[in-house]
């Protein structure tokens, strides 16, 4: 495939690193990210189950819409859905061989993520001013834990996107297909992070 294939170079050629294996239909990283997301489903699934168990076992449980800022969270939901679209646009532009527009859409995704985080910061700040901390009660405990963990996933995504926007984009020059794959893989992760929010929003804010 490239110079690295010959014996004697430090980098080892791993089969199906870029092109799909014919009988499985996927390349390695795509299968890898799906497996990783499966484990993430178990992680958030366990936390949602904990929420259900705590809530059903509690004598009284606050209504999310009375405690939290629903309009801001609705706006955040919209922002994340937009970012899901932009990340697909980035991938499709790269598939078409258009690095410039690919990078513009990646930047748009990062921008959406940052808007989301800033809004989240306003929300947290508001709760802290109201003296609502994780230790206040179990509603706020699970609220801060779940949204905090979700926020960490957003921050992780932003870091990866920044890498692909900056130094990671050098790969485009010698292996555009692999670069496109990388955006597809991080895009799958990004969709999952959005999906978690789609569950978090009604469960925490609306119920």
């Amino acid at each position, binding site marked *: 495939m490239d110079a690295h294939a010959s*014996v*004697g*170079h*430090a980098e*080892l*050629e*791993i*089969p*199906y*690193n870029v092109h799909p*294996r014919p009988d*499985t239909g*996927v*390349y*390695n*990283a795509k*299968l*890898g990210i799906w*497996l*990783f997301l*499966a*484990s*993430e489903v*178990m*992680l*958030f*699934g*366990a*936390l949602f189950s*904990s929420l259900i*168990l*705590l809530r059903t*076992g*509690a*004598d009284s449980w606050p209504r999310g819409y009375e405690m939290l800022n629903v309009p801001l969270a609705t706006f955040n939901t919209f922002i994340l859905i937009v970012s899901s679209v932009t990340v697909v646009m980035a991938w499709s532009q790269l598939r078409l061989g258009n690095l410039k527009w690919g990078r513009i859409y990646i930047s748009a995704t990062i921008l959406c993520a940052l808007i989301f985080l800033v809004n989240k910061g306003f929300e947290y700040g508001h709760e802290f001013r109201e003296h609502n*901390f*994780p*230790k*206040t*009660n*179990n509603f706020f*405990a*699970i609220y*801060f*834990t779940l949204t905090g*963990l979700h926020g960490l996933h957003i921050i992780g995504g932003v870091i990866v996107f920044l890498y692909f926007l900056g130094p990671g984009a050098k790969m485009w020059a010698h292996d555009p297909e692999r670069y496109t794959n990388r955006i597809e893989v991080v895009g799958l992760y990004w969709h999952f992070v959005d999906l978690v929010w789609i569950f978090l929003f009604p469960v925490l804010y609306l119920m």
Partner: protein
Amino acid sequence: MALRRQIRVGSQWMYADEAHKALREALRVMEDEKSGEHGGHHLPWIRRYVFSTDHKWIGLQYGFTALLFLLLGFCLMILMRLQLGWPGTAFNVMKVLGESRAPGGVLLPEAYNQLGAMHGTIMIFLGIVPLAVGAFGNYLVPLQIGAPDMAFPKLNMISYWCYAPGGLIMLASFLAPGGTAQSGWTSYPPLSVIASQGQTWWLVGMVFLITSSLLGSVNFIVTIVQLRAKGLSYMRFPFFVHAQFVTSFLLLLAFPPLEAAAVLQLMDRVAGTSFFLPSGLVVSGQALTNAGGGNPLLWQHLFWFLAHPEVYVLILPAMGIVAEIIANGTRKPLWGYKSMVFATVFLGFMSFVVWAHHMFLTGMGTTISAFFQTTTMIISIPSVIILSSLFISLWGGSIRFTTPMLFALAFLPMFGIGGLTGLPLGLAAADIHLHDTYYVIGHFHYVVAPGTIFAMFGGIYYWFPKATGRKLNDFWGRVHFWISFVCINGIFFPMFAQGLAGVSRRLYDGGAQYAHAKQIAAQTNPFMSICAIGLLVAQVPFIINFFYNAIAAALGHRDEKLGSNPWEATTMEWAATTSPPLAHGNFEVMPVVHRGPYEYNVPGEAAEFIPQHMPTAPEPAPRGGTLLPSTAVAMREN
């Protein structure tokens, strides 16, 4: 001046002394290639030995680290057994724990709890799982499926470098104020939430270990699915690969709930939440100021949702190792290979729906107990299928009683005892009497110690020649086996009697102050402790044998007579590679698979065994000889 003799090399005439020099240089280059300094890629040593991305070296890193942790976990247990055998007696060796834990050499109860918690944690999370999956899986799976490396070599390196700091944090927690974790390896709240700071370190260490196993399991599954050689369909996998495959799924899907639980417990301890703290909790006469409303049972559910599949993470790779050794040592295919494979997959699925059989006595209700009792009885069936198939595989074999075979043969009855004694624990009614007694300790130690650890020893004796080019000494291997076998039974078998007599687990004095337990404790505990010391002594020949040969191999002293396939095996790690395999890409020619994994003594074939990658049965090779595909031989001659 003497005449310089000329000789002909190929079509050229050369001076003999120059030809000799050139030959020596050629030999040195070949030696370099063998030892991994492959022509051209002189990696700095830090990338070759510390941050290596070669699955074989990472496997060895995992193996060394895990063996050290196993020894450490065992030494903690020796200290506990000294206390149990002769409660309250001063021992000089106990002074290593320091004045605060063992003043004057007498172990304090708090320190006993710390040793117990860390013995379990170290043995399971830092010893056996990294050895079974990290070491054996990493080293062997790519070789057995004919892959040049793991699918994500860098991820593989990061996986080890999450495990190592996780282990160091666990060790460092001994230095935390108030000592290390002391709430058992299960860390049940509310005790663990109000425990001293060491518990926080324990949780942080666990997060590292969970991350490590997550990265590892993704890597294993992708490697097995994507990188298997041409012609290697799933039903041609060596059983070991199936075992690792299912194990990886268990690690992938069962560990995240524990990660969630660890996060919640960290929040409880650090941010003052009350996920696991019920309302109105009073500790040492003082009411806690937490908000309350939490549920301690929630932790148990999340914990056992991991920890029951974890049991199969501990046993499946061991079964895989034993299956490999038994097929090779009996010189015939595994009996019931297909049913073993399907049983393994079924076992994997079922292991997710049996967790609450650890919680029959928590008051969660009889309906739930009945459900989990039923699933527990069902999951015993696939285990029995696998074990029976291995037993029947012995029938009619011409068994070679090599050292690895001895360990594999011992595994069968030992795991049988461990498994069968589990049935009464899985029945809710019988469990009322047996729960939290020494019977439970005896049960799961039979599964994990003379079961899994014996399989690991067998695996080390079996694959040592692959990794080093040298065989471990057979006589000392037998000494190691027989003393270990006798002593380990001497430790664990009396536990069943103790448990049936009602001696609870986790007692600081082994039951000496309880009227119903006093007699049996005095009768059995000193004997068991002596056996534990005997078991420690039995490891000395192994340790010397291991390091003597490992160091000799590292210095380049290989056993040339041994060949690359000393056990005359059919699977690809033996038959298609050199010993040790090429540092770069494992195989000289990527193998193509033509047959099932265990073609020993196939009727109608002249060869005694036919390696998986051979298109046609080869001429019988000299014992211990290398069988390479004809293309590979041609490549070499070029």
